[in-house]
Structure formats: C-alpha cells, structure tokens
C-alpha cells in the first residue's frame, strides 16, 4: 500500500494492518500471544519448591481458612516467559524518549539498582535494633543533608512515600502550625491555581481545608490582580499551594511577591516541587520564600517509576514548620544515629506519624547514588540541559504547533491544540506519535490550556534523539493541521489498536472470573 513522503497513506482503508497472515498460534513474529495466568495456570503447578510441612498440630485456634484461594500457579519457565512476553508490550525510557510533561521521565541509572540491592540495605528490618542499622540511619541523614542543601531549607521530612504524600506532609505541617497559633478553626482557605496538578486540591481537602481557585494570567503565571483580591479578606487564609516551575513549564515570575503576600496574610507557602528538575542546583526554593515543598525522588533524582511507583516524596520545611515534622526522624548524637519515633521530647510538636516505618529506604539509596554521581556541578548541568532540551523542542515545533505562551520555557514545552483542524483532537496526535515509536506527551493537562500537550524531554535525551522526535511530531502535527482523518485510527503498529476506555468504565470488569464458577472452586 502506498505512502506519501510525510507517511500519510494513499489508501486509508488499507490501514487495518492485516497484511501479514493471521497466525495459528496467535503470536506474530517476536510478539508472543500471552493469556491471563488464570487461563493457563493450574493449582497443580508451582514455580517454588518448598519442603513438605511436618503436619504438627496447629495453634490457630480454629481461625483457619475454609475455601482455598483457587489461584493457579506456574512453573518457573512458564512464569518467566509470561512476564518477559508481557514486558515487551510496554513502552519504557529504556526504549525511547518519554516526553510525559510533569513526569520527568529521565534515565534510571543501573548503579542505583545495584546499590539498592546490597544486602546491607535490602535485607534489614525496620524494627531491628537501631544500633544494628547505623549505616542505614547515616544514609538517611546524608540524603537529608543533600536535600536541605539543594533546596536551601532547614529541615526535611523523609516519611512521604510519593509526591502527593509529600503534599499531605507539608499541608499537615501547615495545619499543625495554624493549630499551634490557635487559628486552625478560622484559617481553612487554601489558594490553588487552576493550573495545579489534581493532587494539590485533593490534598488540601484531605487535610480538611477548602480550595479557592486562582486563574492563570495571559503569561501562564498566577494572576496577581486576582490573587490580591482574594487576599483582601485574609483572615481565613491558611496558605497557597503553588507549583514552581509551574505546570505550564514556566517559572512563576512573581513568586517572591506571592510568598510575601501569603506570609503577610498569615498563611503559609506550600510549593509543589514536582518540577524541581528545571532548577535543581541553580535555584534554591528556600530563597523564594517557600515554607514546604515535596521533592519527587522518582522524578528529579532518577528513581524508576516502575510503571506507577513506588515513589518517594521527602518534604523540606522552613523554620516556621520544622518543629511540626512527622515522626520518625533521624538525629545524630555522640552515641551515633538514632530514630525519634514518639511524639515527645524533640518531637513534642510533631504533627504525628504518616506511615508504619521510616520512608522509602530503597528509593533513598537510589537517589543518593544519583546525587553522589552527579555532584553539585552535575546537578546544575542536569537542570540546564533539561531546560535547554525543552526549549530546543519548543523552538523546533513552534512553527507547526501552537505554543501556549510566548517566550522561553523551563523544562517542558506546552502547546495548545489551536493548530489542529476541526475534528482532530490532542488524543489523535498522541496516538499517532506511538506509530512513530514514541510515547505520547501529557495530554489535556494543565487544564488552563485547551487541548494541552505538555512535552518534557528531560536532560537525558541526546540531540539526535530530539531531532528525530521533533521531525516525527512535526509530521504528525502537519497531518493534524490538514485534518488527516487517518489519525483517528492510530496507533496501527502498537501491540494493540486504540482501546475503548468508555466501555471499561461503563460496566467495570476488575478481575478475571472463571467461565463457569465451578472451575475455580474445584481445585
């Protein structure tokens, strides 16, 4: 079937990529068919050899399971194959550029993985005696020092398990501070820009605050006029949750003034640090009047996203909030390192405990390995290259796509769908990128831009990769501008065609159920 130079088909109907024969096996070349384990596993099979139980009398006092789980097992060869086959249906950083704006999909160094697996870190128990884990406590302390120094903040809470959890930590510290001031009942209003990530308002609510939305101005920054209005009666203001650089990929020009206004209003400044990668090593949030900020170790500091987690969101705190940090935390004295676990003594003012143990140790090791590898000099370069790459992408694409705002961007380039022909949507462009071998950009976020496309290449992309990516996206954008209907059938070369998300939500099927119920019971 023919193809024009821009890769547009001359015969759209032939687009159903069935030219290759259907196979009997259901596999095609290197893409193996793989069913659900429930469809081919068996309760007769196991991939684990365990010694036979002795059959000694139990001490369960009758509290024992009636029906088995009925779950199938697989031999090791089948299990390994199952996951290896499935893995090949995933896109990943290790396969190519992953321009998900706001997600900072950068290279994950393998040294970090190796270090995190040292038995001295991976095989220690959170409740074993503290004198047997001095190296672990020292590592946490060392990482904390890096985070405090890089942000120019006096304290950091290591408990938060991800960015949203860090937001929770910061907002709970603010809540506790207001409580200490006896103003908790009166100060409930938290200002949140419309461009904020969904976790910000959700967090505010989860802490018992109310959300007051501020719009963005024509420059994509906080609308200062509106902000001042909203602060005229400031008696009920608890604080502001502001992302900087913001989710439009722009530095909040008036950030110091915003900080001053909020403080003058008796509120606190929570900064969402998800975009710290744009300024790490170059700008210290502590110099911007920030009271609390979470740091996604799984973004700026290269710990892997793992298909959705785990993350880690240490949260730096200003002097105003430091005393309220959650337990446990590490302190060093002559005896060595020690965990403060209870709300008393040094922790008398702590707002409490967020989690069972001491935070994401596995992520701490990785992040520290990354920081030590880059050093202060390298981290500055990280920010500069991240910003350079984003501006390069913006510069190369602004001719064919519509930049959301004028001027240079920070670490991500934001476009609106203004350039697309009627009927062609952001999602069509995104899916067409898949056929070019790329993961789509972040779509429809931030909400302040119509049909938003947010591109964050990160600093770990080479110029050659960026050039290839821009050429590909430009070609897709031209098709979108020309109203090329074939975009609607993208992707064609992915393991699956476009999936029906509406159908999934209409009547949710959230687990496998056997054809005939008996099947499982009868194991």
């Amino acid at each position, binding site marked *: 079937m023919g193809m024009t130079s821009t890769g547009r088909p001359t015969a759209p109907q032939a687009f159903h990529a069935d030219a290759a024969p259907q196979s009997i096996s259901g596999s095609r070349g290197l893409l193996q068919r793989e069913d*659900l384990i*429930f469809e081919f596993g068996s*309760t007769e099979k196991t*991939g684990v050899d365990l010694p036979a139980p002795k059959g000694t*009398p*139990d*001490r*369960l006092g009758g*509290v024992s*399971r009636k029906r088995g*789980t*009925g*779950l199938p*097992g697989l031999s*090791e060869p089948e*299990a*390994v194959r199952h996951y290896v086959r499935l*893995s090949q*249906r995933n*896109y990943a950083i290790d396969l190519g550029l992953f321009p998900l704006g706001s997600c900072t999909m950068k290279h994950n160094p393998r040294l970090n993985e190796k*270090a995190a697996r040292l038995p001295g870190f991976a*095989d220690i128990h959170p409740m*074993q*005696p503290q004198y047997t884990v001095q*190296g672990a406590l020292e590592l946490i302390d*060392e990482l904390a020092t890096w985070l405090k120094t*890089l942000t120019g903040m006096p304290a950091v809470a290591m408990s938060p398990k*991800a*960015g*949203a959890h860090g937001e929770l930590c910061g907002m709970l510290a603010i809540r506790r501070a207001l409580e200490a001031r006896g103003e908790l009942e009166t100060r409930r209003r938290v200002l949140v820009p419309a461009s904020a990530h*969904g*976790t910000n308002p*959700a967090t505010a609510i989860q802490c018992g605050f109310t*959300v007051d939305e501020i719009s963005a101005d024509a420059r994509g920054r906080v609308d200062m006029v509106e902000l001042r209005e909203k602060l005229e009666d400031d008696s009920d203001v608890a604080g502001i949750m502001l992302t900087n650089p913001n989710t439009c990929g722009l530095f909040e020009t008036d950030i110091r003034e915003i900080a001053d206004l909020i403080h003058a209003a008796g509120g606190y400044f929570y900064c969402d640090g998800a975009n710290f990668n744009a300024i790490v090593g170059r*700008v210290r949030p502590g110099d*911007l009047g920030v009271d609390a900020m979470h740091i996604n170790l799984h973004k700026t500091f290269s710990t892997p*996203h793992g298909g*959705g*987690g*785990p993350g880690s969101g240490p949260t730096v705190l200003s002097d105003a909030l430091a005393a309220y940090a959650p337990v446990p935390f590490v302190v060093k004295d002559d005896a060595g390192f020690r965990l403060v676990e209870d709300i008393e003594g040094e922790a008398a003012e702590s707002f*409490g405990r967020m989690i*069972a*143990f001491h935070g994401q140790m596995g992520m701490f090791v990785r992040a*520290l*390995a990354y*920081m*030590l*590898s880059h050093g*202060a*000099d390298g981290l500055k370069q990280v920010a500069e*290259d991240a*910003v350079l790459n984003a501006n390069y992408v*913006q510069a190369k694409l602004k001719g064919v796509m519509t930049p959301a705002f004028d001027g240079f961007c920070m670490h991500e380039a934001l476009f609106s769908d203004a350039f697309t022909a009627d009927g062609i949507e952001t999602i069509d462009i995104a*899916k067409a990128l898949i056929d070019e071998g790329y993961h789509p950009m972040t779509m429809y976020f931030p909400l302040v831009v119509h049909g938003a496309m947010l591109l964050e290449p990160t600093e770990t992309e*080479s110029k050659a*990769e960026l050039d290839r990516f821009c050429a590909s996206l430009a070609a897709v954008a031209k098709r979108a501008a020309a109203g090329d209907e074939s975009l609607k059938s993208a992707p064609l070369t992915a*393991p*699956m*065609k476009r999936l029906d*998300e509406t159908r999934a939500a209409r009547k949710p099927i959230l687990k496998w159920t056997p054809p005939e119920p008996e099947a499982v019971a009868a194991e």
Partner: protein
Amino acid sequence: MRYLPLTPQDRTAMMNVIGAASVDDFYADVPEAARLPGQIAGLPDHQGELAVERHLAALAAKNRTAGEGRFFVGCGAYKHHVPASVDHIIQRSEFLTTYTPYQPEVAQGTLQTLFEFQTQVAAMTAMDVANASMYDGSTACAEAALMACRVTRRKKVVLSGGLHPHYAAATKLLCEAQGIEIVQLPPAIDGETALKDAVDGETACVIGQSPNVFGTVTDLSDVSEAAHAQKALMVSVFTEAVSLGLVTPPGEMGVDIAVGEGQSIGNALNFGGPYVGLFAATQKLTRQMPGRLCGETIDADGNRGFVLTLSTREQHIRRDKATSNICTNSGLCALAFTAHMTLLGGTGLERLARLNHEAACALADALEGVDGVEVVTPRFFNEFAFKTPMNAEAVLAMLDERGVIGGVRASRLYPGAELDDLIVCAATECTTEDDIAAYADAIQEIV
C-alpha cells in the same frame, strides 16, 4: 558526565536554533535575590561509579542483615525468601522504566499484570474487588477509615487494641485532620474481642486486625455482625500477607474493606520501604475506593485489552472531589507481589503459610520449654508475644550477645503502656531448627 548525552557542541548548536545567548536567558524570570553566583556550595562534585559504589557499600557494611544471623523480628515486616526470578522480572527495563499506564496501547504489559494482581488479591482476601495498590499497609488502613466515613457519612472510627500502633497513628492523623473522631481501644493481646462492644450508631467503621500486632488471629465475624447491626462498616487489617494462605480471610468474616501489607510476598525488607499496600472491598463499595483500578475492555479490532478505569474517582480527573489524593502508588512492588504469587500459586501459598506456622509453633514450644517464659498469644500464625520475668529490652540485648536478634519489645511499640516484659517474635520459612534451638538455649541462659 555519564548520564548527560549533550556534548558542548550540541549545546552550542541548540542554543543557536533556539536563539538564546546562554542558559541564563532561560532563567531570566528568577528573582535577582534567588540567583546563585555558581554551583551550590557545601556539596561534593560528581564522582565515578567506583567511588559511589564504595561509599554506599561502606554504609551498607555498617548494617546487620536479617540473613546473616538468627533473626526473629516481625511486627509488620517479615523476612521471607523471594525467588530470584522475581527480581529478574522487576528489573526488566520495560517494567522498571515505564510510567503509570495512561497510554494502554503501549502499556499492556503493566496493565495485564495489574489485572492479574487485582484478581489475586481479591481471591486471597476472599473479597470482591481489589485496587492496583496503595503505598503500604498503614496508609491503606488510613484510607479505609476515610472511605468508610465517606460511605456511611459518619465521623467516628473505632480502632482495635490489636491494631499495629503505627497503623493506628497513621489512621488517627488523617481522620483527625478531617474532624473524624477516633476511638482507640487500649493495647490488648486479644484486642479484637473487645471490638463489638465499642461500636455504636455513630460509628462509621470498626478496624480490627488478624493476625494482630501481638500475633493473635481472630475470627472477626461477630465483630462484623455487630458493626453491620449499627450500619457501620467492618474494616480488617493484616500485616502478614502470607497468613492469607492459612488464616480465615477477611471475605470469610463479613468484612467490607480489607487492607494489608503485601511486603511478605515478592518484596525485600528494605528497612521499611518501598512496600505495597493491599486494598480490597465488596462489590458495592467499588466506586468509593481510593487508588487506581485496572479494568478489561477491547480495542478497535475487538481484541481484549486492559486499561485504567473509573478514574472519575481520582484526583487527576476529580481534583478536590477525589476519593483520595494518591497518584503514584507501588506499581513495581505490586508486580513483585503478583510475580511471586504466580510462582507460588494457591497451593504454594498454602504450603508456605503452613511452613511459617509450623516454624512459629516450634519456636513457641521451644520457648515454653524454658521456665519463666510464658507465651501469651492465645492463637497465632507466624508471630507471637511472650513474657519473661525480666525487662524485655535487657533480654533482647543479652540475646543479641548470644547471636540472636530476638524480636521487638512491646515497649517500643507502646512507649506509654506497661508492657516492659513483653517480646514479640516471628518465625518464617527462613527460620531453621538451629535458629530455634539457639533462641531457646539463649533464653534458658538468660532467665
């Protein structure tokens, strides 16, 4: 720098395309006051792999690993053997270095494994539905309390005296932030039995744990009945997922929301994290659940595939109306969990559970053989509490001198309470008969 692909020439060429004189142009919006002269002071410069590896190895060497000695610590995290293939699987680039599967056409690997994970968790807990994971057991517990309050539109939560104190604290923290009253029953080895009397007409939910923090296993059926009688929800917690192979699961006790820690399956101790929170519920509560859900659908060719679904519950769509603020969860730990479970299978899980229970029984028998020692946990799975005539902290120190890390003193879990003579210890499939004999001998010498 090895992680940065741009060469000086690249940078210059790119600057020209952009039309910027220097990177400083990009930072023009940074307030004067916040502009740094050079790199941040007080931190070392970049180092090669060898140097970094040596630095970290030195720190690791200062820790004593669970594997190197006779180790009996539990209380919410457990030393189990994880098959080597599990680590191989989670290190696959395509699983390790990908994002939340928002683009299902190129994320079926992650999505199918999540669908399998949800099915396994639902079957293990004997509940209708499970989500795609929470941060850990403690935050899952807190979210369960909040969910119960949303569902019942009530603002009172009753916590059992057997609930892991850290779970209780995490739950208390979030509840109180939302003005929810917490009724915390006093620490009690058989804490769940007292629960049914604590529920009343204002109660949103009752939270019990089995096996609980003292190792006690309890059939919560009558607590569930008491709760349901008051139109409250029953929430049950477990910190040892392996127990689900042998102990009565939540779904067999009339539980509405079951939460727990999944570390024991597929995941290393990691000094407390990352772990994986399990969250399951009854069918009718599905749309009130926090966290991600993976669902089945079809693609444009009609082939079966999987997608994230019901996201209208979630922050990125629902923002301030969301059921939770959680975004990143414990994806890769959930993959480790499901991979290990797939290797075990139901039969393997049950056998593993039996081996754990038999090890704990053997340990209990051995310790009870020492006079002065009293095992105080009435019914247990792989963990129990025992008393000695001496102070637990002193006993543990003396045990260590004899090469035994004997467990956790109850006084570390409950600083206030008068539990100074209590030690909570656990045994697993990794515990050998020698370990048990050594423990008993050491105790013998000590008391």
